[in-house]
């Protein structure tokens, strides 16, 4: 980091935090603190929803994912527009008409208090873990740049986020997110332009895309069906739809965003904006990762991108031959890349195929050597399942981007994460206070009391997230880890809400039993099968439905399992 980078970084962060604090003025009642007094326009909610997901993980991990595995991760988002349509059409009107603070408050109106409590606890467990991952990502940034231990940087980032979140309510968080997204889009464009400019003069943008494709980095659609394959068209369309239905329909961190809308139409528009914009945005970020891959065809990357581990195994005698092989493999791949570009321009298909095979063989050798180095990390006391995916983009940014731009990109990463974390912690505090504290421990207290309780809950969940962040680095790719953790819990919540909306005659006890059975089924699937985590949501949801409808049928007779007209006064889908 050069002086100009520090100036840009500090100025950007201070201005964003100051803006957040400025917007938090007037959030002095629980309604304003948690729901912004239902005053937000659709574009602010839309960008806030997008910003919650576009945290540091998006920059750090998605680009690295594309570097090592290609762009097929984009398929994960194919189910998102479908989920958004269902939520906009069915869920948004129900929540708005029910006039609830949280999604789980609705469960008590629809079922009973124990179902609300179970839903709240499942959310708290899941989102608490995810909040830890979100805080860990920018700590990773600081540790790479400053060379500080990750534990120290995790505590620093966590303390900043908690302080900011305690001071500002949902309104401040939302408006800060709007500002974040503008900066994020600017940062993305600057990153892509820079990486293309840094390519050798003899390699055009078209050549770069061709080389990325030849190395399998542009595999945006895989039509082959495989239960164990995480990312293909079918897992994205079906598994992804269930995941995003759960995320946007049952997760308070998202529900709270669109509950702040002025009207149902404003909330719907905010979700549909994400339905349209999210996939192109992810495509763009993954494409940056693919271009970073091409850049490193012509500028030798380190064997491993995590400098601390590389320095550690560098002292081991077994590393020298690996480093030698890697150097040779890199040179071979570099020559093969130039030769492939030349063959591509020559118009000789046979020569092009020959060079393509040589290029791919050279890439396979690079991958093999990197795997050997990763194994050496594990064998010499490093963590099992070592992965340096999260360090790839950071390594590129800090080493090759010009002064000032590095500071800006780091500021974007940090600020985006602070915003995402603050939203998560805010929602955790909301559920803790509204669904548990107010419901079971302290009813009928003053507004000021609940406001203070919300701030205390924010502090608690911030500390919890920091503690879990210490475990996050063992989970490999962060973008995958976040969604995998979510998938362990979302399926049973989704099943509960599906029953609530689609089967008005099913009562609380059957759905409560269904949620327990669904959670057990997901955990069993994760522990004892190789089925990809994208399917967990569908499995969990299916088990909840089957169990709840089965018990309901046994209790009330077959007629109760058919969709029927809701009872007078009960909430109903639009």
């Amino acid at each position, binding site marked *: 980091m050069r002086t100009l980078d520090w100036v840009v970084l500090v100025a950007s962060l201070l201005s964003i935090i100051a803006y957040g604090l400025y917007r938090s003025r007037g959030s002095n009642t629980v309604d304003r603190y948690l729901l912004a007094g239902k005053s937000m326009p659709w574009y602010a909610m839309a960008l806030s929803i997008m910003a919650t997901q576009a945290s540091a993980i998006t920059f750090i991990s998605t680009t690295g994912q594309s570097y090592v595995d290609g762009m097929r991760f984009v398929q994960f988002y194919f189910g998102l527009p479908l989920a958004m349509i269902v939520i906009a059409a069915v869920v948004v009107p129900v929540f708005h008409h029910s006039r609830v603070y949280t999604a789980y408050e609705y469960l008590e109106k629809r079922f009973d208090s124990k179902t609300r409590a179970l839903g709240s606890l499942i959310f708290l467990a899941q989102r608490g873990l995810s909040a830890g991952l979100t805080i860990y990502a920018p700590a990773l940034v600081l540790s790479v740049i400053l060379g500080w231990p990750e534990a120290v940087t995790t505590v620093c980032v966590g303390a900043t986020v908690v302080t900011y979140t305690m001071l500002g309510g949902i309104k401040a968080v939302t408006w800060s997110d709007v500002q974040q997204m503008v900066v994020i889009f600017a940062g993305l464009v600057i990153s892509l332009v820079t990486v293309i400019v840094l390519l050798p003069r003899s390699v055009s943008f078209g050549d770069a895309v061709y080389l990325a494709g030849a190395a399998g980095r542009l595999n945006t659609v895989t039509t082959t069906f495989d239960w164990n394959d995480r990312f293909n068209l079918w897992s994205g369309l079906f598994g992804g739809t269930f995941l995003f239905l759960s995320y946007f329909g049952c997760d308070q961190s998202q529900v709270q965003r669109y509950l702040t809308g002025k009207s149902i*139409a404003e909330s719907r528009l905010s979700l*549909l904006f994400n339905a349209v914009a999210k996939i192109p945005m992810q495509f763009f970020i993954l494409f940056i990762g693919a271009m970073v891959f091409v850049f490193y065809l012509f500028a030798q990357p380190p064997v491993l991108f995590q400098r601390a581990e590389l320095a550690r195994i560098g002292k081991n005698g077994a590393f020298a031959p690996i480093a030698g092989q890697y150097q040779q493999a890199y040179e071979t791949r570099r020559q093969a890349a130039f030769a492939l570009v030349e063959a591509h321009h020559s118009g000789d298909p046979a020569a092009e195929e020959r060079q393509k095979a040589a290029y791919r063989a050279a890439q396979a050798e690079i991958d093999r050597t990197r795997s050997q180095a990763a194994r050496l990390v594990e064998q010499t006391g490093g963590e099992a399942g070592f992965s340096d995916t999260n360090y790839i983009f950071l390594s590129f940014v800090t080493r090759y981007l010009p002064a000032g731009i590095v500071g800006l990109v780091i500021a974007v990463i940090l600020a985006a994460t602070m915003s995402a974390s603050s939203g998560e912690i805010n929602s955790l505090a909301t559920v803790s206070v509204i669904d548990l504290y107010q419901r079971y421990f302290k009813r009928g207290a003053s507004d000021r009391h609940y406001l203070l309780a919300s701030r205390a809950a924010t502090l608690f969940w911030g500390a919890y997230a920091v503690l879990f962040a210490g475990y996050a680095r063992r989970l490999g790719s962060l973008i995958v880890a976040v969604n995998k953790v979510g998938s362990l819990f979302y399926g049973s919540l989704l099943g509960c809400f599906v029953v609530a909306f689609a089967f008005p005659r099913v009562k609380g006890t059957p759905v409560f039993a269904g949620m327990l059975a669904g959670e057990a089924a997901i955990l069993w699937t994760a522990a004892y099968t190789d089925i990809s985590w994208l399917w967990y949501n569908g499995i969990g949801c299916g088990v909840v439905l089957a169990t709840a409808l089965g018990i309901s049928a046994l209790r009330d007779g077959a007629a109760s399992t058919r969709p029927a007209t809701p009872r007078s006064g009960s909430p109903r889908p639009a």
Partner: protein
Amino acid sequence: MPEPHPSDVPDEPPPFLGTWSRVYRAVMVYLALLIAGFYLFARAYR
């Protein structure tokens, strides 16, 4: 909770395409075109 929620949450038609069901259909067509575009992109550069 001491301060009540706003009791009236108005629903309105979308600002374009007339009805919400038309907007939802448009989003589905958009998704189909996007997937088709990505498929062709992947085929062109594999």
